[in-house]
């Protein structure tokens, strides 16, 4: 079972190919160039090196957010396009969950942090031990002070941050009185290899979706979409 996974939710463009639990190829470009122009040629180069074709891929996966709005849409649209018309499944992976996967094997509380601006982070809490990684909270957009209060409950355990908001969050949370572990640099940035590993688990648990169902997760809902949801809700309650 071969998975082609993408991550474009932060600054880098990342592509990975996983086959039955093994990463065959992993490719990340982080030079500020447009992800929409990078991802497909990167995937083609990797498939070529492996003497594979898009038709050999069983599952197309991408991180669907939260993250940069543009990046989230690039990844989602790309995977929709690749899966459309093929007998292939698609899997949507939370960017936050993929980041936690970067630290798989470490014992402690894992806290991915992506800069959500205005003093907020996109985050969630995970516990990692011999049994694997377990999610403790949903993905959230919260102020760092709220995150500090949540983390106080886990004071006795080693706490590892990760994600592109690492530096800012590490500094701010330390200043707010939390004691944090230092995360190896290689484990900090968004990576398609982690997306692929999480996607494999989701697929085996029956969580694949159709290319039509694959959708971005923004956590913060744009005004136009909020209004549409309110309208739909109003129509629904008017009917019932």
């Amino acid at each position, binding site marked *: 079972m071969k998975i082609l996974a993408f991550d474009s939710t932060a600054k880098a463009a990342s592509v990975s190919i996983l086959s039955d639990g093994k990463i065959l190829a992993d490719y990340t470009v982080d030079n500020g160039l447009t992800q929409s122009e990078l991802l497909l040629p990167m995937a083609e180069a990797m498939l070529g090196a492996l003497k594979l074709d898009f038709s050999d891929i069983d599952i197309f996966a991408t991180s669907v957010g939260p993250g940069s709005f543009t990046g989230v849409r690039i990844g989602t649209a790309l995977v929709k396009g690749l899966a459309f018309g093929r007998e292939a499944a698609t899997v949507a992976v939370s960017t936050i969950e993929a980041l936690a996967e970067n630290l798989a094997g470490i014992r402690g509380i894992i806290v991915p942090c992506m800069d959500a601006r205005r003093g907020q982070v996109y985050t969630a809490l995970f516990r990692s031990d011999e049994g694997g990684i377990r999610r403790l909270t949903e993905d959230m957009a919260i102020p760092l002070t709220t995150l500090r209060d949540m983390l106080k409950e886990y004071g006795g355990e080693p706490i590892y941050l990760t994600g592109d908001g690492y530096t800012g969050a590490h500094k701010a949370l330390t200043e707010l009185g939390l004691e944090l572990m230092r995360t190896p640099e290689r484990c900090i940035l968004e990576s398609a290899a982690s997306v692929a590993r999480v996607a494999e688990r989701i697929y085996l648990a029956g969580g694949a979706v159709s290319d039509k169902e694959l959708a971005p997760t923004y956590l913060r809902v744009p005004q*136009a979409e909020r209004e549409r949801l309110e309208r739909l809700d109003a129509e629904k309650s008017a009917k019932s």
Partner: protein
Amino acid sequence: MVYEIHSPEETEALGRRLGEALRERGIKRAFITLDGEMGVGKTVFCRGFASAFGITGVKSPTYTVVNEYRGGGASIYHFDLYRIDGYDDLESIGYHDYVESDGYSIVEWSVRAEDEIPEGAIGVVLERTQIESDRRITISGFQL
């Protein structure tokens, strides 16, 4: 600096001068607020700016919110934020992704993003005068 302008061609030429000045000084990223009432020549100014990079086909972003142009090694992001309502809206159009990448963000109705205007922004204001074809254009935050 205030410029007294007598025709749309001169508005376009001033836009071009600003584009050329940024290009010649190797400034690859700039945020330019572009203000003035409807029909005063904002799109014409932007067309002139784009022509400094050999970019043609500039249209008003009123309905598209943002138009992206590339050419001459430059990117231009031309925004009209009139219909943007609140921070989440701003983020949903990829505002920060544009503003924080190399390129020139030219922003109409920047008041909608008041708290999110980066430091060192260049201000361009177009005003009508007593004479129908004349305009007064004020450029602040940058010396041509």
